[in-house]
């Protein structure tokens, strides 16, 4: 039965539902553009979601909640930066341990606030624009964090590709030695953007607990999205806009799974719920395959394929995950 299904509703639900994921994805994109993999996303989001909720409900101020969540995210990221950039420890190891630890820390510190009253950031339609026929409902009838997420996408692109800081950032990500030779301090840049990216990830936590999945508990409901964000960064080929599109695609799949349930009552609900995750991985596989030598050779011959490969090709920042050797 198709009732209760309306493309506009789905579209606007996707925009809203994807907001936190978009923030996290953009944050990690920045970080990885500087050559650092911050694997602690999943835990960071939970911890900052908790912090945001607690602070917001104690202070009664949403703003305070978001501020604190950003700070928390930045702190965790600072740890990653300290350990991997300064001490040259394995970024993966540090990130993974922090993922588990921050999550438990959130549950431990947040336990007495579980399922308590908390403020919610309601919708704030944009005065004139929300009146527009289609776009009005889809784009301009959301809560502030959702607008923020949409603005961030554009901003991230502009920052990366149109500002001198963005250029420096990409330089460090591509070749630390060369950046150093040009008078840029790679370690500093790496630390800065790891922390900045972490702050964005923190914001996504607040977006969960104060907006898209209001409330705090164990589980909060944002668990797992950090890992998806990490996959999306690759899927998005380290390009903010492409990564964001990936986030919207994922949100779309999740929203649709609610409708699928009533369309195919015989298929157990879990199937639709789990589907998006392997699908993401599958897409990853495709885009990596497209990048392989064989694919390149094929592309040499068929112009059509070449376009496709250009579209899907992914070129990780050359210094991604590497530590810099100083003497």
């Amino acid at each position, binding site marked *: 039965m198709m009732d209760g299904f*309306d493309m506009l509703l789905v579209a606007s*639900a996707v925009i809203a539902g994807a907001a936190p994921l978009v923030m996290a994805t953009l944050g990690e994109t920045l970080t990885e553009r500087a050559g650092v993999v911050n694997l602690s996303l999943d835990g960071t989001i939970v911890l900052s979601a908790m912090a945001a909720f607690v602070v917001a409900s104690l202070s009664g101020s949403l703003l305070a909640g978001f501020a604190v969540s950003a700070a928390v995210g930045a702190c965790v990221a600072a740890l990653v930066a300290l350990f991997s950039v300064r001490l040259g420890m394995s970024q993966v190891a540090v990130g993974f341990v922090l993922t588990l630890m921050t999550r438990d820390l959130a549950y431990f510190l947040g336990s007495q606030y579980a399922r308590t009253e908390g403020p919610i950031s309601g919708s704030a339609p944009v005065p004139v624009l929300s009146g527009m026929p289609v776009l009005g409902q889809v784009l301009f009838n959301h809560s502030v964090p959702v607008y923020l997420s949409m603005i961030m996408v554009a901003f991230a692109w502009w920052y990366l590709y149109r500002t001198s800081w963005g250029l420096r950032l990409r330089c460090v990500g591509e070749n630390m030695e060369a950046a150093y030779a040009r008078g840029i301090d790679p370690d500093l840049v790496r630390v800065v953007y790891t922390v900045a990216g972490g702050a964005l990830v923190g914001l996504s936590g607040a977006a969960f607990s104060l907006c898209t*999945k209001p409330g705090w508990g164990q*589980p909060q409901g944002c668990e*797992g999205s950090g890992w998806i964000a990490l996959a999306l960064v690759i899927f998005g080929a380290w390009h903010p806009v492409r990564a964001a599109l990936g986030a919207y695609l994922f949100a779309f799949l*999740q929203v649709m799974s*609610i409708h699928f349930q*009533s369309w195919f009552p015989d298929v157990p609900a879990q199937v639709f719920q789990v589907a998006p995750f392997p699908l993401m991985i599958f897409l990853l596989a495709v885009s990596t395959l497209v990048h392989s030598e064989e694919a390149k050779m094929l592309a040499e011959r068929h112009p059509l394929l070449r376009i496709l490969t250009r579209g899907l090709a992914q070129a990780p920042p050359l210094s991604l995950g590497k530590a810099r050797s100083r003497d």
Partner: protein
Amino acid sequence: AVAATKPYVFGLLLVGPYNDKGYSQAHYEGGRYVEKTVPGTKMIYIDKVNPSDRPGVTIVQLVDDMVEKGARLVIANSDDMKDGIREAARKHPNIHFVHVSGDDVLTGKAPSNLVNIFGRMEYGKMMAGFAAALTTKTGKIGYLGPLINEETRRLASAAYLGARYAWEKVIKRNPNDLTFQVTWIGFWFNIPGVTADPSQVAKNFYDSGFDVVISGIDTTEAVMVAKQKVNEGKKVWAIPYDYVGACEGGSSVCLGVPYFNWGPGYASLVKKSMSGHWKPEWIWLGPDWKDINNPATSTVGFMVGDALSQEARKALKDFIAGLASGKVQLFKGPLNFQDGRVFLKKGEVATDRQIWYLPMLLQGMKGASSQAK
């Protein structure tokens, strides 16, 4: 005198946090009630007893620990402790066990020291459905279901019957104008990536014209989202579940809450255990029709919420009176299953077993009835 001697310790295993404003808190306060009302008793409890919160921890292990701490009666409050508590009961034959919501005694699997107890929540759900139907403007009621099994089918159907009664008999509307949609999230609470996100489901309900959502899950997303929608200027309502205090904070949208009050039931069991009148039984306690909200006597109640209109309150009062007097019999034929098969012939009244083991949702409800084949 009794109190002077070593206190009678009973243990409580809670599936969720003791302060979850939901299912587990209801049990926790039931335990406290026993401590208050039965002299010489002392409760020890452990909450979040579920494998995802306590990886690797088994019921048996926790029972062992409680017995070490001197417990002589152990209450397990959740369906998912079924097998664990049975195993523990076999292991500790001279300790008394209570499994809430189970049916081991019915199925004969239970050892003699194990008792099943549950509340006739279908009455509470009927009242919930009733209130929903009187309130809805769009005639579309959403039911936020957990996973599909006899219990959840039973409760969803009860809510539907209550709603249909209000719709047809009270406000005399055309039954075809009433939509009652059940959407299952796949679990008692949200597991990211595994269950549907209750917030999303509730949002989807409200966005697609459903203005009342009845929650059948352990967590309070429905109320949360309703509040969000009200802030956005929509007129929507929600009905939480399990705990008398569940409306707190959500009062602006809460039509009321069907809740459990375990105090009396537990007290009687503890007394039996203390006085040696323990016997294996399957107890299914209903509301105290004299006053369904009497904490001392009624196991199932319905706490009206601020958002329920005055006339609706009145109608609900009469409805409850009808249920009490037996004039209103909702599990009574003619009733068909979703697929058209006959559940109850005209005039036939369902037995407890028929209600307990409801195999499918009822005709007129929308949504999946059974998971896989």
